[in-house]
């Protein structure tokens, strides 16, 4: 089980002329193979939730400009379908993709084959049962009504068990690591898996099991909801970026010290940001001010990480053309910087006066969750899947459709809704403009949003087909073409036709 024994066996099997490089590669292949089943479970179930979430997103988007669409179905009313969309993509897709990527990165960076696969499998099973019950509950009208925590109380303890198991597994792997040096990605991964169960557990107790009084609920709500992005998705996304950029271009990260500064400043400031969602709200001013200050301080980790990643990439941008992983990851890294800068701006009182309560905020959320996080997850999957399955991606064309569909879709989405949302806010702040005129102003932009959603849906379907095709190849017997010495012609191996 432990890696040292595994290394010894490997050396015993392959004695003699055995270079370090060969040994390293064999070791990585062994680690990758050990991750196959658990990581595939997370990726496949995550992807199925993504498809469901995309469908709900489209229904919600159409309803917002054509309110009569499917209006007779209670479970598909806008307030429910929008919530189901958020929960399927955030908890169904993003979290599962994140855990899959985190497991694989942790094994690779600790240089140990996956230990205790039982824990990971049980975590996955619990997780999907939990999300299914939670989504069913929301559809049935049992939503808690608390943003980002809508899943009813009979579903969330199951999810909590799952997060706790992942944390336990990560600590075990960390303790058994064969590589003593800790890479920056490991700091972020370790932090994320420890932070999240704590956040989730606290929010559940203080909001659902034993709710606190009045607006303290709003404080806990936004402390949690902002940290879902800040302390769960962001660290895992950054861990992946820190790993894949140097890996794909074959050069070390630009600066170790910037990495340290970026990590600790993120850990210090991000978790104080939440109250900027309540600017102008019925809270004491100190709470909101403290979060605005922390939001501005986020410039330090964001710019540090941006400089570090950009300086690593300099001179290697040509590689974007050949590596789908790099294309998605760099797209995500740039979006992270943009989303964070937009976040700093949105936290300021003067900007929030206009942009708060509008589609500008919706665009910002998608810039963070999709253009940054989901794109980084796609990029990571493009790298990880061929290595754990031992098969190449079947279709380059499908990869291109995926990338361009989602890239054009999300850029259109964010640009159009950011601009329209800001104008919507200006109109709302002018009391001479009738409210219904503000509503009518937004409709054409909401229609463009549906079009951008369709583009992203096409990308997701392309990814799904390519992924399914890869899995079919994995289960089909491997047919290596054999060259006949007699005819010089290529014939199939006996297992084929």
């Amino acid at each position, binding site marked *: 089980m432990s890696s040292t024994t595994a290394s010894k066996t490997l050396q015993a099997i392959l004695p003699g002329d055995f270079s370090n490089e060969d040994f390293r590669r064999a070791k990585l292949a062994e680690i990758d193979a050990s991750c196959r089943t658990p990581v595939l479970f997370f990726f496949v179930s995550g992807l199925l939730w993504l498809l469901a979430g995309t469908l709900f997103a489209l229904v919600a988007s159409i309803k*917002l400009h054509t*309110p009569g669409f499917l*209006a*007779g*179905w209670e479970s598909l*009313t*806008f*307030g*429910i379908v929008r*919530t189901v969309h958020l929960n399927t993509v955030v908890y169904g897709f993003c979290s599962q993709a994140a855990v899959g990527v985190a497991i694989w990165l942790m094994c690779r960076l600790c240089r140990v084959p996956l230990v205790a696969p039982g824990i990971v499998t049980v975590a996955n099973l619990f997780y999907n049962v939990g999300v299914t019950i939670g989504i069913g509950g929301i559809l049935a*009208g049992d939503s808690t*009504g608390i*943003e980002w925590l809508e899943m009813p109380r009979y579903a969330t303890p199951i999810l909590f068990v799952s997060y706790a198991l992942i944390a336990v597994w990560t600590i075990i792997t*960390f303790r058994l690591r064969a590589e003593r040096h*800790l890479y920056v990605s490991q*700091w972020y991964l*370790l*932090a994320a898996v420890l*932070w999240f169960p704590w*956040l989730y557990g*606290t929010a559940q107790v*203080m909001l659902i099991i034993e*709710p*606190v*009084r*009045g*607006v*303290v*609920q*709003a*404080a*806990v*709500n936004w*402390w949690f909801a902002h940290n879902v992005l800040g*302390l769960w998705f962001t660290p895992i996304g950054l861990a992946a970026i820190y790993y894949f950029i140097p890996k794909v271009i074959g050069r070390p990260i630009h600066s170790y010290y910037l990495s340290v500064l970026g990590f600790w400043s993120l*850990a210090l400031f991000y978790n*104080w940001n939440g*109250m900027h969602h*309540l600017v*102008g*709200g*019925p*809270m*004491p001013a100190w*709470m909101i001010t*403290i*979060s605005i200050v922390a939001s501005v301080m986020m410039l330090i980790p964001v710019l540090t990480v941006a400089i570090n990643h950009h300086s690593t990439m300099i001179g290697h941008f040509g590689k974007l053309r050949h590596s789908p992983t790099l294309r998605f990851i760099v797209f995500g890294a740039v979006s992270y910087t943009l989303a964070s800068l937009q976040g700093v701006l949105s936290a300021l*009182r003067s900007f929030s*006066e206009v942009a708060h*309560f*509008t589609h500008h905020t*919706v665009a910002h959320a998608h810039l963070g969750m999709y253009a940054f996080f989901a794109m980084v997850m796609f990029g990571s999957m493009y790298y990880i899947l061929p290595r754990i399955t031992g098969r190449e991606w079947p279709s380059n064309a499908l990869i291109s459709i995926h990338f361009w569909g989602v890239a054009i879709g999300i850029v259109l989405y964010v640009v159009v809704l950011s601009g329209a949302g800001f104008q919507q806010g200006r109109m*709302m*702040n002018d*009391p001479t403009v009738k*409210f*219904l005129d503000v*509503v*009518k102003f937004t*409709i054409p932009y909401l229609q463009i949003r549906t079009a951008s959603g369709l583009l992203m849906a096409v990308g997701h379907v392309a990814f799904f087909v390519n992924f399914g095709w890869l899995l079919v190849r994995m289960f089909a017997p491997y047919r290596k073409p054999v060259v006949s010495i007699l005819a010089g012609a290529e014939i199939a191996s006996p297992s084929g036709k």
Partner: protein
Amino acid sequence: MSYGPLLFLGILFTLASSWVGLVLMPQRQLGALGQHTDTNTAAIYPQARGGEAQQGAEHYRALGCVYCHTQQVRPEGYGADIARGWGRRRTVSRDYIHDKPVMLGTMRTGPDLTNIGERQSDYSWHYKHLYNPQITSAGSVMPPYPFLFETRPIGPTGPSTNALALEGAFAPAAGHEVVPTLRARQLVEYLRSLKSSGDLPEAPLKKEEAQ
């Protein structure tokens, strides 16, 4: 930075700090906030909701109304909330002590509802608006809620007293009527109960309005 224990301590300390600052401190400051009794009039504010309205809050939550309607009035001079007539004063923490969950909202696809009970107390307006918003607010993107109403044949004793007065394209088939279900009645009671306009020391009403 390859020292595991230092990393662990840092991870735990950072989140603990914001938990103390943004969760524990607000709880200490606001967690025991109670009703206010006016020393002159002996009026108690805010009052808890009645049973029907409280049931209605559950439908408001379940149907996700909060995703398009806020329940918070920003201060004068910050946004146009007061100028739009959404409230006579800003809302403060005390306004929300009875709410479980608190539904402040973050999006104004529709108007703020903090004081909808003051702005619009007409039952039939609310029923028509919920049945199909186009009747009362043409061009709105609010979804219709036909499932909160029952369309049924008119009985032998004639139309029900609570049947909606629908005209033109919105009218049901001949010989039929549309009546609100229990849920619609509870939801409208809740909407009519939404009033955050008590005169509080921390959020006083303007003199002429308070009297």
